[in-house]
């Protein structure tokens, strides 16, 4: 229990550290220092021992020195005055004949990060830049970057910058790369290190000498270079060719990124580069490390946005194995959806079908929505699987399937017959409000073909008092209205009850407003109501929308090899299942004949993200633009 006995431990150690008997025995002294570090790593606040530790710094024992430096670097900012005492020892160490000691001292000195020490550190750092040993130069170069970060507002010392530029030609590759890193940090405000022709060529020629970290760094910096002629461009490309197939994913990704940004005006070359890295990317997807697999998958998703056919024949590489974490499975399914073509669709669907009953509900839902996405192009096969899943009578699966069907019929109205047949009996299984909502929408839409629709709605209406979700109530209202239009005899009574409840008793403004709107609409006569509620459906003549159009590479190249593609994991699946791009794309089309006023409304719909879901819901329910509703409302 280190957290409880923290104070005691500190007291005890302090007593030991100041005990002259222990101080005179180097071994026991070092072990006591070791105890301090142990306590520190367990989260005990040992900052009170600062003065004792400063004394422990004056020793010939390298290990003890290292330990004390670890301590000092963590707590120096709490005790700037006492830290001054350390500097003297450190400066002495900077003159030690052993380069290891020199570099250690220099590194620790800069790691103290105290603005008050800057004046003492500058001189050893300058000397360090000209040290014989490469390992001291490596540290010194980065030391200047640390120093600069300490005093962000201060002026940049031109002599230092010049010196760093000249050290780019240092024989040691790590010094060279560290120079790049330091210059990038120091000159951040001026846009980083200047990448001109001689520097570029120098860096490219020495690329092979660097370790993989250095290579990725150099490649990243070179992205800023613009070759002056086409010949030069191709020279650079052929130099880079071998790193493009590097076995190390970081280097491969950095090279590809550089390739793509260099060839932004030569689509054919970019295409060839993508083909060339295909093998390495696939290898990264099968890598032993799951984090590496995940990252590679995310980047493959990016590539597929421009070159959908790139990996079509390798779809089996993206089949999930049993023990893989859910986040990888989800990404793999997203990739599989993109890879579907006529030859592999059967295999892929078969595979996805297996995932639908996964123990992990997220994975199962993702698999079901993936099948739904494929259904947009291969509706028959997918509908068969989805309706089969309904037969399992599991609440979460059914909910996901109904939501998916909801999206599917919106895009492919020709599926509606099968869907309306499959809906019977679902209401008993469904538990969550999203699933119920989707079911309600489907019932409103295809109520005349589902014989039990009125009874289903009736149970919902009976339970409306205890319903908490706003969206559910809105959906219920709309669905009942629509069902009333096609089956008035069975629905009239319950619609009356529902409207009465919503107008008189409901506390939520939105629901009340919506109910009033319908109520007044009914007063205008059945024809008018029908016009509003059963207007045009999404037009079947628009045909099936297959995926997104391919994007040009430079749309995403700036986010390649960054954290961008890895983010928003959850949001992405959300948009994939609900407000997919096709929905938005299909909004403006049927409305071209409507008044001008509408356009701005639509723009608002698209832009105000938060409102989108609610607007869209209403919109889907009515199949007419919201502005018509509002106009009617105003007229009243």
């Amino acid at each position, binding site marked *: 229990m280190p957290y409880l006995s923290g104070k005691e431990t500190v007291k005890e150690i302090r007593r030991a550290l100041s005990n002259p008997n222990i101080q005179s025995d180097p071994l026991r002294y070092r072990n006591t220092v070791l105890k301090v570090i142990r306590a520190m790593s367990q989260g005990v606040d040992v900052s009170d021992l600062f003065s004792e530790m400063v004394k422990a710094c004056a020793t010939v024992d390298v290990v003890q020195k290292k330990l004390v430096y670890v301590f000092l670097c963590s707590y120096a900012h709490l005790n700037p005055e006492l830290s001054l005492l350390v500097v003297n020892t450190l400066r002495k160490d900077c003159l030690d004949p052993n380069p290891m000691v020199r570099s250690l001292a220099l590194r620790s000195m800069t790691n103290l990060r105290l603005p008050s020490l800057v004046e003492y550190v500058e001189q050893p750092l300058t000397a360090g830049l000209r040290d014989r040993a490469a390992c001291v130069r490596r540290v010194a170069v980065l030391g200047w970057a640390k120093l600069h970060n300490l005093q962000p507002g201060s002026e940049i010392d031109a002599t230092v910058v010049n010196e760093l530029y000249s050290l780019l030609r240092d024989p040691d590759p790590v010094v060279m790369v560290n120079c790049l890193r330091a210059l990038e940090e120091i000159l951040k405000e001026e846009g980083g290190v200047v990448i001109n022709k001689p520097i570029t060529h120098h860096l490219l020629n020495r690329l092979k000498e660097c370790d993989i970290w250095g290579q990725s760094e150099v490649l*990243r910096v070179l992205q800023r270079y613009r070759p002056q002629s086409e010949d030069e461009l191709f020279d650079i490309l052929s130099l880079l060719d071998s790193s493009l197939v590097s076995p190390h994913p970081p280097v491969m990704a950095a090279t590809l990124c550089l390739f793509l940004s260099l060839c932004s005006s030569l689509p054919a070359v970019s295409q060839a580069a993508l083909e060339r890295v295909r093998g390495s990317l696939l290898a990264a997807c099968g890598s032993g490390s799951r984090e590496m697999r995940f990252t590679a998958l995310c980047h493959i998703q990016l590539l597929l946005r421009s070159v959908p056919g790139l990996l079509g024949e390798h779809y089996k590489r993206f089949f999930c194995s049993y023990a893989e974490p859910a986040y990888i499975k989800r990404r793999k399914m997203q990739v599989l959806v993109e890879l579907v073509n006529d030859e592999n669709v059967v295999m892929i669907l078969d595979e996805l079908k297996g995932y639908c009953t996964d123990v992990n509900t997220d994975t199962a839902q993702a698999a079901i929505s993936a099948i739904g996405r494929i259904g947009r192009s291969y509706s028959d096969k997918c509908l068969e699987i989805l309706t089969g899943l309904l037969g399992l009578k599991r609440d979460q699966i059914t909910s996901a399937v109904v939501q998916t069907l909801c999206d599917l019929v919106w895009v492919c109205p020709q599926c509606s017959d099968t869907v309306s047949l499959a809906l019977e009996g679902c209401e008993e299984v469904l538990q969550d409000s999203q699933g119920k909502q989707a079911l309600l929408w489907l019932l409103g839409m295809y109520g005349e073909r589902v014989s039990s629709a009125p009874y289903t709605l009736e149970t919902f209406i009976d339970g409306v008092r205890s319903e908490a979700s706003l969206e559910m109530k809105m959906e219920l209202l709309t669905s009942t209205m629509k069902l009333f239009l096609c089956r008035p005899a069975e629905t009239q009574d319950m619609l009356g009850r529902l409207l009465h409840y919503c107008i008189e008793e409901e506390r939520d403004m939105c629901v009340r407003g919506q109910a009033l709107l319908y109520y007044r609409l009914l007063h205008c006569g059945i024809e008018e109501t029908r016009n509003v509620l059963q207007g045009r459906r999404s037009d079947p003549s628009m045909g099936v929308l297959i995926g997104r159009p391919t994007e040009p590479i430079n749309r995403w190249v700036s986010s390649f090899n960054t954290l961008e593609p890895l983010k928003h994991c959850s949001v992405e699946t959300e948009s994939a299942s609900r407000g997919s791009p096709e929905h938005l794309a299909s909004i403006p089309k049927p409305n071209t004949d409507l008044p001008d006023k509408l356009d701005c409304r639509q723009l608002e719909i698209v832009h105000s993200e938060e409102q989108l879901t609610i607007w869209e819901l209403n919109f889907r329910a009515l199949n007419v633009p919201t502005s018509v509703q509002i106009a009617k409302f105003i007229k009243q």
Partner: protein
Amino acid sequence: MIHSLFLISHAGDLFLEKHWKSVISRSVCDYFFEAKEKAGDPENVAPVLQTPHHYLISIYRGKLFFLSVTQTEVPPLFVIEFLHRVADTFQDYFGECSESVIKENTVTVYELLEEMLDNGFPLATESNVLKEMIRPPTILRSVVNTLTGGSNVGGILPTGQLSNVPWRRVGVKYTNNEAYFDVIEEIDAILDKSGTTVFAEIQGVIEACVKLSGMPDLTLSFMNPRLLDDVSFHPCVRFKRWESERVMSFIPPDGNFRLMSYHVSSQNLVAIPVYVKQNISFLETGSCGRLDITIGPKQTMGKMVEGLMVTIPMPKSVLSVNLIATQGTYTFDLTTKVVLWDVGKLNPQKLPNLRGSLSMQVGAPKPEENPSINIDLKIQQLAISGLKVSRLDMYGEKYKPFKGVKYVTKAGKFQVRT
């Protein structure tokens, strides 16, 4: 680039932290703990998390999370690869990479981390170089150190750092000069119910143990190098030579290292060494089920299959199992619900079989998903892809080394769906 590193045990104990730039408070990890809580299983924590001011990039290895904190945009592959390199180094130094070992060697860990990064940038990551700066702990050395007050810090500057061949130190001397190569292949495969291959791939590595004096220049050639896809070499291998002649030419590092790793992914080349006849069924009523598994050899190229081990994670509703194995022993873990059947050697004349009944929780619904069967096996003296080393030559030194090549095939992620 990498601002800080936190080591977190799989239970959620933060037990070590290291900062390469200014100190970041431990509270930044709360976002990670929150995500971990939500994910349930530690394996399911997403590797990249975004917090208002930082990115948290983590890897999960050996029941440990290596959580790095960065403040700016970084190439994710770079950071992930680096974190794995850190874990590899610990593994290399301490024999395993676990919480207890790291706690035991806190000091060495701090020293290593200090050398591996400076200001957040990788500095020395090559294990040979590190080992000269900080010697790995051995029992003998720690005894000697406590008696004499010596240290595990190298007194001299690593020579390798300045030589033209950074992975090899100069002046190596052995009385017995020997070079051993282990070709290890792992089959990753998914077989479906009927036994057809859904997916199969071989992941191979060549581990080398080279103890040769001086600066030997080795050339290793294969009988059938065209088999290999996606090769990845130790930096010592001359890639140009491989591309043009398909021979591996290199000056080896001293000691143990991984010479190359490769994939063989074209399906028809991947032989599946065993077949599994299985029947696992759960009855709709009566809360019981049946299990019957037989394993037989398929494409073993005349070699004996050894160390056969079958793992079946049962659905949670299975209470107990009552099985009879014709060969080997089986265990059923009540908490994890895993049936582990240790078969041993596979005798082609008398096929091992495991059968019996499963009793289920009364009233629990029939499991939606049948369990999948994971198989572990080993075949000595065979590389299942058919890869063969044809010869090893040495140039640059005069003595005659002792050479040896060993092959072994193992099952990697080998699973059969039911």
